[in-house]
């Protein structure tokens, strides 16, 4: 795709003239025509303008003759395409065509338990991997962390290298990051940093991919970068910026809405949960049954572990139907037990047609506002016996949209809706996603 985009732009590039500056030979790395340390669109524009030019007579095009044959043609373009968006410090200034290694680091979204379920293994897109909000999030992992689901706080990072077996190292910008070759920190699998840089990574001579596991081994939140470099050079080939989670998001389905991979598109809570997971939040999704009538259970344990052991201080909880009732129960328990947990805020809660969840046969409206929630979003409709067994949520005081939430049956898109479809409206899900994003930090 990258090559195609370059090729299209390449055709149009003939119209431009060559850049004008003078010197002897290529003064920078090959393909880095402006010498700024990276091979990017600016270089491409210059490269396109140099096509068919004589690199010996047009000095500014000296760095565009990548194979050193004194012509700037499609062979040079092919080499340029491989180097685009990377920096290769191993291209000789003489531009012989022997390009060095290229590296792509890919970080994944957080694990849950022994794998990724109820999420799929989700790579962070290249364009987001250095974004401090939307990029890869990571849970703080300290000795006291109870890990109710087992060790799952390390972030998977794959390192793809071309050509296979190229020598590479990692650099971190602070010692909060540790790197392992095993997901559960098996003794002997930690990669040692000396002055924040590793030696050559264990990449076999024919190996093109190495899987690493990154740990945030500090109690201090913030961001930290991990870069791939040649062992003996400080040139950055690729970079990932991690943000340590300071919040946790809990999504609860309705009665008999178990989590699944892939997600059931009619399970609106989980569709929202996945959307937030993909933009850098630490999301945990559960069947509402994991929350007991007193708020106890697996969801509570995970939130408590995050607050007590991982410095998380913001909590978001939302649910549909009985999941709405469980949102109340879980919030209530967290609020009652604050003294033993530490300082945190329940920054966001939401009901979608919330039904009380004292039991599996509870059919009462959940109209109590979650205790101490800073922002509560409420959507509801009106049940009828034959359509949905009279199941419905209802107005909740001091909710959003003000004053008591949105009766979706007053909207053009939600008129005559039933309990069983209200969580699936794109309008409902979009408002949840935007309000979560604006209510809590990552």
């Amino acid at each position, binding site marked *: 795709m990258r090559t195609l985009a370059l090729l299209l732009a390449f055709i149009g590039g003939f119209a431009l003239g060559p850049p004008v500056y003078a010197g002897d030979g290529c003064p920078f790395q090959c393909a880095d025509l402006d010498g700024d340390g990276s091979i990017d669109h600016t270089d491409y524009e210059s490269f396109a303008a140099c096509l068919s030019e004589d690199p010996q007579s047009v000095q500014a095009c000296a760095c565009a003759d990548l194979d050193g044959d004194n012509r700037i043609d499609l062979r040079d373009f092919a080499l340029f395409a491989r180097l685009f968006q990377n920096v290769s410090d191993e291209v000789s200034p003489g531009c012989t065509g022997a390009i060095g290694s290229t590296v792509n680091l890919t970080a994944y979204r957080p694990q849950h338990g022994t794998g990724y379920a109820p999420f799929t293994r989700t790579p962070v897109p290249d364009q987001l991997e250095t974004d401090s909000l939307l990029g890869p999030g990571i849970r703080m992992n300290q000795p006291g962390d109870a890990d109710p689901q087992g060790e799952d706080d390390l972030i998977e990072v794959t390192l793809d290298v071309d050509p296979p077996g190229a020598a590479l190292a990692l650099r971190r910008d602070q010692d909060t990051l540790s790197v392992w070759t095993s997901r559960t920190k098996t003794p002997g699998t930690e990669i040692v940093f000396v002055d924040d840089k590793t030696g050559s990574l264990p990449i076999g001579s024919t190996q093109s991919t190495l899987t690493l596991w990154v740990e945030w081994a500090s109690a201090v939140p913030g961001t930290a970068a991990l870069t791939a470099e040649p062992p003996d050079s400080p040139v950055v080939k690729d970079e990932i910026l991690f943000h340590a989670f300071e919040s946790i998001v809990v999504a609860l389905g309705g*009665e008999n809405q178990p989590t699944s991979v892939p997600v059931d598109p009619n399970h609106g809570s989980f569709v929202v949960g996945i959307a937030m997971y993909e933009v850098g939040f630490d999301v945990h999704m559960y069947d509402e049954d994991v929350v007991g009538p*007193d708020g106890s259970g697996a969801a509570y344990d995970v939130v408590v572990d995050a607050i007590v052991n991982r410095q998380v201080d913001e909590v978001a909880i939302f649910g549909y139907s009985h999941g709405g009732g469980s949102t109340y129960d879980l919030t209530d328990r967290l*609020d009652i037990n604050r003294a033993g947990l530490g300082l945190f805020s329940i920054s966001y809660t939401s009901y979608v047609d919330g039904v009380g969840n004292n039991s*599996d046969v*509870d059919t009462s409206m959940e109209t109590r506002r979650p205790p101490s929630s800073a922002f509560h979003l409420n959507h509801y409709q009106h049940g009828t016996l*034959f359509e949905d*067994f009279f199941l419905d949520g209802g107005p909740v005081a001091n909710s959003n949209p003000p004053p008591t939430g949105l009766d979706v049956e007053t909207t053009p898109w939600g008129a005559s809706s039933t*309990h069983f479809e209200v969580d699936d409206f794109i309008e409902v899900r979009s408002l949840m996603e935007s309000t979560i994003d604006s209510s809590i930090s990552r």
Partner: protein
Amino acid sequence: MNLNNTTHRKMRIAWLIYACFAVCFVSGWAIADEAQSKSPVALNLEMQTVFKELTTTEDAAAREGLWNQIRQFDRADRSVLIQQLTLFASESTSTRSSMLTGAVIKQFEISDTDVINALLPMMDTDAPKLRKQIKGTLAEFEDQSASRPPDFSTYREIIAAAFREGRDIPPGLVKHMYEVDPGIALLTMMRASQMRTPDDLQEILWAEHVVSESVWKKTHGFVERDSVDQDVTDELQRLAGHGQWWVRLYVPAVMKHDPTFKSENLLDALTQDSNTDVAQAARDAQ
């Protein structure tokens, strides 16, 4: 509604029932496979068919007729209806089918006692889904929240009657109470058992108080979350040797509920208990 419409609707419902019967028999019906083999209550295929149709049909008129059929089931035998609804819900795969039991209870204003008594014969089932469904249904009558312990008063009356009349205590109900809240279960059993001697009562009251206070201190941050008070260890040791099985049952139950109290030695000893429920609870807690 005219007679022709009514007749036509009844015929249509009857046809649907017959059709579903055929499908059920051909396919062996998953519910029959899963629940009937492990439940002391047999499936009533007529009722199951009506429930299934009601929760899947898109025909609003048919739903009304099916509701009327359920009303007739209720009038014929409320207990059987509740049991069949519970079997149905235990194998349900959608929000709609899961919520049918609650809708029927609400619509027909079925009392707590009626539901509990109907479920009692099913509570010793070893089918996990059915056990979960029964537990999830009983919670409705326990009125538990983060700030309120469960209310077992209805169970206490049932158990007290069994004690007074010298009948077997419903083991499934006792097990359920200890799973929900070991402390409240112990106190409920103490009252239901007709225990009258102050010293005997105080021994149990004090032990439960010591354990509960320790939980309270940990919950609210007065002591470390994983700390164990020596007084708690002593009281659990004492209760593990008590003469009443339902007092000994408290020990593995509370250790399962709060694993920081777990003592492998005590649990090992209780796996050899003369009461099979205590021994099993100890194995479950290990």
